[in-house]
């Protein structure tokens, strides 16, 4: 189940026989997957198929759900993320996350972006200024907010808030960005902007994105994984998945016959 040969060599995250339960309900069943570096991988499937659970397991955000139980393994650059010696906060610094609903803190634009670096000990004003500008530029929102850095972030539009959240995630210089339906709460124009941004980010980051929007997966992703009822049904290059899927269920889903 590998994408293209070029990418096969530099796998950044791999899972092996990953199972997740919520109490008695099994949300993921023996998922084994290898995700290549500096690419965009889309996770698709109907609601409740386990794609968000899979995403949230990769930076152990699923730990926050009390009734969740996980078996199997996830390797990030060869390190087992469930190893007892793994520092979860350190892992999340490397594997950042952008959520479905834009969730800027009720603080100024500047403080939002500076939050991560400050928490990790950066105090120098000059350094913070630099990180804030670089992150906002990286998230393609600098020009829109450069005069509003001191204003409350909640005053921005939904699309701006989401790009601010991406900037905030970039500010801690992650390696991987997990995106959980980042455009589902946004209008089409904001969605286009975010999609363009995601394509740019591929240069420097590995992106794994959950999406309900088939067109979006087709437009931006290199690899696509189709989940159904907790199973990874098919995973491969996006072109192939969308043109000649090997599984009937994948075909049914992407042609809109269910889900």
């Amino acid at each position, binding site marked *: 189940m590998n994408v293209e040969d070029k990418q096969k060599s530099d796998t950044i995250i791999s899972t092996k026989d990953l199972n997740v339960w919520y109490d008695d309900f099994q949300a993921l069943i023996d998922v084994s997957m290898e995700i290549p570096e500096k690419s965009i991988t889309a996770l698709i499937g109907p609601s409740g198929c386990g794609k968000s659970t899979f995403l949230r397991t990769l930076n152990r955000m699923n730990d926050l759900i009390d009734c969740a139980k996980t078996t199997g393994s996830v390797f990030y650059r060869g390190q087992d993320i469930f190893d007892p010696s793994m520092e979860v*906060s350190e892992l999340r610094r490397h594997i950042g996350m952008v959520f479905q609903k834009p969730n800027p*803190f009720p603080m100024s634009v500047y403080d939002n972006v500076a939050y991560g670096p400050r*928490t990790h000990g950066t105090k120098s004003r000059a350094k913070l200024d630099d990180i804030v500008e670089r992150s906002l530029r990286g998230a393609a929102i600098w020009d829109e907010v450069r005069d509003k850095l001191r204003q409350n972030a909640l005053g921005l539009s939904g699309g701006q808030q989401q790009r601010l959240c991406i900037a905030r995630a970039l500010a801690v210089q992650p390696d991987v960005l997990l995106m959980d339906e980042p455009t589902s709460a946004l209008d089409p124009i904001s969605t286009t902007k975010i999609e363009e941004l995601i394509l740019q980010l591929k240069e420097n980051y590995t992106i794994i994105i959950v999406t309900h929007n088939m067109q979006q997966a087709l437009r931006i992703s290199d690899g696509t994984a189709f989940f159904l009822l907790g199973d990874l049904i098919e995973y491969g290059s996006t072109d192939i998945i969308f043109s000649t899927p090997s599984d009937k269920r994948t075909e049914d889903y992407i042609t809109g016959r269910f889900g």
Partner: protein
Amino acid sequence: MIGEREITVTAQESARRKRIERIIHGIFLMLGLITVGCVLLITIYLVISGIPAMRTIGLKEFLFGQKWASTAAEPKYGILPFILTSIYGTAGAIVLGVPIGFFAAVYIAKIAKGRIRWLLQSAVGMLAGVPSVVYGLVGMMVLVPGIRKLFKVPDGASLLASIIVLAVMILPSIIKVSVTALEAVPQEYEEASLAMGATPIETYFRVSVPAAKSGIAAAVVLGVGRAIGEAMAVMMVAGNAPNMPSLFESVRFLTTAVASEMSYSSGLQRQALFSIALVLYFFIMLINAALNFFLKRGNVKQS
């Protein structure tokens, strides 16, 4: 078929229904006005009965006089000792109670799980239900002798004893209101912080607490109000001598000044007690205004 679904309420019936609506509306309005009436009545009564003594004694003499000797041959009516005692006592209770209440609230709202959380919440609930005379009683039996022995002072009934009792009494209000504010912080904020590699504790103090700050401020103001208005418990542990406040001295609060002399007062002395009540009322109004300010600010931010 259409005919069967026609609306067939007679004009008479319709007028009757409107009348009933109006009457019920009127009853509710009246019940609501009773509250307003009570506040107005108290305010007017306090102002009317509190002003004469201030006039007779002289406002400056009354508010800033350092000696209260209402039953002396040459009576003195200076209430500065009471004002300062109330302020110091409340401030002391806040200094002592707010850190405890704040951290307890963070613990209950964010960290504690299952049984421990349940235990803490019930304890806070019960603390809120303890009558103030019981606080006073326990303070009198335990705290006062304790202070006397520990600090080797002639009498443990003092400002310090009052501060400790008040600090415990304001804990439930501070904790409950702060917990409510902290629990109302959207989980998305905390998730965003955790996803950036902040630890849970960093997240609580850098995201949750700032997001809940107007609610927490309201909790503190509520505590101030509770402390400054408390009479019974402090009366039992303060010693009630009208001294200028000092930590180990017997002191008298604004509330206890009114309560302790009212039963046998007469003439100017009685009028002066009303004036004290008016001063206390003024403080409470200030605190209420502050409370409204914080609550309003909290609402504006969330909308």
